[in-house]
């Protein structure tokens, strides 16, 4: 598929259907973008497993950090790659091995060889996007920061049941 742009339907479908994310390259430093994204996704009801070999078995925002993709005791839906593009191929091979459904490379990360491999194995691929920005964009939250969501809708936005300043992509259960 074309990875220069993605339809909103494609991205929304991935974020609505899946809950368990393994974040490879999650940093325990609060100034790093990966820390922001981890914290944001946890507050939006995602189950996020931080993966970082340098910090294995420590705890990050209440979650145990794992050293590598492997047996987490539950199936992984999305592998979110917070590493440089040249590291994405090996991580994608691991994602295929653990039967993940989606390989997601962060904003600024693109590896077409890894994408082709993942797609050949039946996985969905997103590259050069941030799940926090995409969630914020499709839920309308990002508009609070004056950001152009490129979404027009005459429907009332859905509130997340955890507070008035959090929105949802699907109705609360």
């Amino acid at each position: 598929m074309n990875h220069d742009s993605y339809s909103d339907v494609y991205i929304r479908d991935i974020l609505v259907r899946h809950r368990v994310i393994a974040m490879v390259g999650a940093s325990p430093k609060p100034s790093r973008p990966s820390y922001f994204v981890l914290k944001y996704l946890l507050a939006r009801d995602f189950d996020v497993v931080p993966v970082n070999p340098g910090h294995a078995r420590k705890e990050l925002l209440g979650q145990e950090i794992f050293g590598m993709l492997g047996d987490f005791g539950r199936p992984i839906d999305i592998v979110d790659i917070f590493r440089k593009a040249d590291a994405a191929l090996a991580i994608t091979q691991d994602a295929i091995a653990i039967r993940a459904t989606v390989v997601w490379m962060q904003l600024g990360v693109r590896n077409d060889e890894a994408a082709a491999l993942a797609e050949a194995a039946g996985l969905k691929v997103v590259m050069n996007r941030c799940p926090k920005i995409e969630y914020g964009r499709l839920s309308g939250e990002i508009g609070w920061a004056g950001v152009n969501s490129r979404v027009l809708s005459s429907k009332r936005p859905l509130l997340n049941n955890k507070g008035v300043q959090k929105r949802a992509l699907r109705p609360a259960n």
Partner: protein
Amino acid sequence: MSEERQPGFNTLAIHAGAQPDPSTGARVTPIYQTTSFVFDDVDHAAALFNLETFGNIYTRIMNPTQAVLEERLAALEGGAAALALASGHAAQAVIFHTLLEPGDEFIAAHQLYGGSMNQFSQAFAKFGWQVRWADTTDAESFRAAVTPKTKAIFVESIANPGGIITDIAAISAVAKEAGVPLIVDNTLATPYLTQAKEHGADIIVHSLTKFLGGHGNSIGGAIVDCGTFDWMASGRYPTLSAPCPSYHGITLAETFGDFAFAIACRVLGLRDLGPAISPFNAFLILTGIETLPLRMQRHCDNALQVAEWLSAHDKIAWVNYAGLPGNEFRALAERYCPKGAGGVFTFGLKGGYDAGIALVSNVELFSHLANIGDTRSLIIHPASTTHRQLSDEQRERAGAGSDVVRLSIGLEDVDDLIADLDQALAKV
């Protein structure tokens, strides 16, 4: 809307950024006339203050009415994000506060709104920011003004008051060569007439007070971040590319990607300098924008007819409207604003300074005041008002010499406007 469809400009002017209110279902964006917003819990408050999540804290920094205005402006300009402020001048101050350090320089066209010339040469000098002037009709003059200290280039798309159309793409090429962002003041053109980003603008600034608000009732300004400039490339913009001491060492350009400049302007410039727009003004301007395409077209159509009539009048020495056949900026107008050359133009009276005073004193429908971009038609003699503080040489260069009268053509019946000018000119 369906996925592959790109909504048109008229649709964006009405819908961009404005879903129904989530708690009441109100279809029109409400006026959130409140200073502050409750936090969901302590963790949410901390996350907001750390910029880890999107949300509202305090109306000096953000407000939901203002946010709809911002997203709409970003959408209309094709940009990544926008920030609304108390005025166009506030927007300019915040842009340069974000880009410049004391001792830095920027290059600006000398064909600018007189208020901007004052701000750049007088107020900014107190911050240690040095403006170097160039000629907007000559891209080479910008190239010649570039020094190692240059941090930005600033032009108006349609220059006020002279009716000059800037070759944005040519000056953008100079900015790219110098590795600095091009800032375009798109106030007179509005995104309806000129899509400045498509021609190479990196940052677009607006006085919302003019055609965007359009009804002469609210002061406001805005910064649009086109998302096109790489702030990390040179290390010359430390506010964006270096760890930020205000926010626990995060690097704004790294954390916020293509809308980092708009975020920096909000969470540093606006937060610390304080020129917030009121929610009520944001609401009025937002309402104005819904009819922008219809109004701008009428402004342009009326202006062309008045300009043609004045061109044939025996007391008029010249008319500078880029929409007129034979005008020196006609070719640039066809490229940069093909739907019309705007609603503001100047003309010269054969009778000079005294004739200008007589004309503004005798009109009955045109209002003698300093604004532009109102539903009402407006008239001013710049030499005795808006450009009064400038030297004679500066006034001439800005297109505001002693014989010059500026009109901002409104939405009235054009025959009534011509009749008013006719009776007033008879008394000159």
